[in-house]
């Protein structure tokens, strides 16, 4: 049984113009100890998905799911109190901007230890020892002194390390990391990602890692789920996704970033013309068809989730068939 199973998860938000379908029936699962990357462009529903899993959606949002199960527990049926216990003890979250999660008024020691004392009932002394151990593990020097420091006394990179240590305090089964390195410099990002991957393997923690960076995904993910307009349009083990992307959107994404050594410098890049459709109201057919270079009349019907080889799935009418004759190439506009 997977650690987390999600079937037909939907998140609707009331907006002025009607109902915004931010997450439109997505399916995925996470195995124990696995790193699943959720990728997709701005507004495709990555954060809404993670907030739905954590039980932290905005109050006005409406969640429905055929199945939302964490280690056999039906998350949709939990009381707010049990949900909150689960959140502290067995699922934790790392945010993009650590200052949104760290309280500027409390020392790092207090914030690191609080959860462990509350959820696991350990003594303050034991909690401090674990905090020091984890701060050292995430590469923070003089860990003992740091416990008395306040968040603003640390650099962005150090704060993100503290967040990782904090997420690991209760030895959770699942960590959801929502773009944890997007705000950092590339050198710091590489260090943090390496660390997260090491710790994840050491503690056997499952991680859902949210990002829009296909470079990051390639280097850290065991499996990938690609989102577009509120849907998972393709999911696969990482090597399969990069070697044989089956959905035209995934193919487009992979070919529009310059690949050093492959894309000749100064050459034209492949672009995906057009824009994402509005998610307010009902979306008919394939949500990508207004931008898809191979769209056919069939695409006005909603494509099924096609099973390809192994654990590789794609939501496209032509995922398992040869590509029909392409339309004439689009010019930039």
């Amino acid at each position, binding site marked *: 049984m997977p650690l987390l199973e999600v079937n037909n998860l939907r998140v609707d938000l009331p907006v002025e113009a009607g109902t915004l379908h931010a997450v439109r029936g997505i399916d995925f699962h996470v195995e124990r100890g696995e790193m699943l990357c959720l990728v997709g462009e701005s507004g495709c529903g990555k954060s809404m998905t993670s907030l739905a899993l954590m039980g932290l959606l905005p109050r006005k949002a409406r969640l429905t799911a055929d199945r939302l199960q964490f280690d056999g527990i039906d998350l949709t049926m939990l009381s707010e109190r049990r949900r909150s216990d689960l959140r502290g003890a067995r699922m934790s979250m790392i945010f993009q901007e650590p200052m949104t999660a760290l309280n500027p008024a409390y020392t790092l020691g207090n914030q690191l230890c609080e959860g462990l004392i509350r959820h696991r009932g350990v003594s303050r002394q034991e909690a401090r020892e674990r905090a020091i151990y984890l701060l050292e593990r995430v590469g923070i020097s003089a860990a003992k002194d740091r416990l008395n420091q306040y968040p603003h006394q640390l650099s962005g990179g150090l704060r993100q390390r503290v967040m990782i240590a904090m997420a690991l305090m209760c030895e959770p089964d699942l960590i959801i990391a929502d773009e944890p390195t997007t705000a950092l410099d590339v050198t710091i990002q*590489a260090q943090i990602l390496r660390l997260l991957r090491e710790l994840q393997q050491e503690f056997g923690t499952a991680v859902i890692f949210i990002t829009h960076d296909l470079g990051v995904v390639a280097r850290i993910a065991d499996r990938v789920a690609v989102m577009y307009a509120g849907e998972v349009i393709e999911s696969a083990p990482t090597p399969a996704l990069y070697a044989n992307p089956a959905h035209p959107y995934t193919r487009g994404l992979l070919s529009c970033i*310059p690949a050093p050594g492959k894309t000749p410098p100064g050459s034209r890049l492949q672009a995906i013309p057009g824009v994402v459709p509005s998610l307010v109201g009902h979306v008919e057919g394939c949500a990508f068809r207004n931008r898809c270079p191979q769209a056919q009349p069939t695409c006005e019907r909603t494509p099924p989730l096609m099973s390809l080889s192994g654990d590789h799935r794609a939501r496209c009418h032509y995922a398992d068939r040869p590509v029909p004759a392409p339309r004439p190439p689009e010019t930039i506009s």
Partner: protein
Amino acid sequence: MNAQPITEVAESRPLPSDSASVSRAVTPALELCGLSKTFTLGGGLFKRGRTLGAVSNVSLRIPRGQVMGLVGESGCGKSTLAKMLLGLTTPSDGDVLVDGRPVRGADQKALARHIQPIFQDPYSSLNPRKRIAQIVGLPLRVHGIGTPREQAAHVAETLDVVGLPRRAAEQFPGQLSGGQRQRVAIARALVMRPDIVICDEPTSALDVSVQAQILNLLLDLKAEFGLTYLFISHDLAVVEHLVDRVAVMYLGRIVEEGTREQIFGSPRHPYTRALLDSALTPEPGLGVPDIGLGDATPDPSDPPAGCAFHPRCPKAQATCRQQRPRLEDIRGDNARVACHLA
């Protein structure tokens, strides 16, 4: 396309110190000579503020029609440098030469014809209450170039050049996508027909599927108008794709500068190497490299003595802690590096 009207006007109002003796072939389009900017932080009536050297003694030449990439981590001074080139910030020291003529004391209007910016954020840099035609035409009105009819025709042409539909002229920024808004920002820069464009992270607020369109556009414009670019970006793959030369900055100083092949093919400064190693290309199976850098990110108002990179440098020696390495063309191959061990 036909750029006639503007060229004519520009010709009739030359830069104040225009001199025929300056050969356009050898003079770099843009030259920075010992450029520095110091900010004063805090301070008060009886307390002296601390100083922060955001940009320190930067010298750089950008040949006409070339793209110079500028990379380096957050806060290293890239945007401050860009603002000095545009005349938006006064240098504390040093000079900027555009076409061999100093910008200091030059007429802002004349300068605006030569050099224009494209900034990062297509959302906040456009006035939400103005129509696209007004936004793009503003520089022409401000500088009193052409009659209203000529201006309108020129705006329409420029919208064509950047690939915006003509109907966009009557729309407001809020009605356009992020990529379209960045095209508006590019149109606004190009409407003056500058020869130099300063791009400060022009695509970093955009999704990758849109970024490719804008990069293609910048390349097309360069080919068509022979533009010279300074291209600031965090994305090394994009920089490698676009530039002829690259300058790498660390804590306000250029630490290495050379051709694309020199920098990406055989980087010599340890910071450049770390930067390149940190770039995660989309190749599964390679994992995340161990770049062997400490994360002792320095305080720019209290930079380390000697080589500013030494606290993080895996190769640092005693000399590195004491003496600042000079940016020099050590091998005579027209590439410069500031490292005692290079």
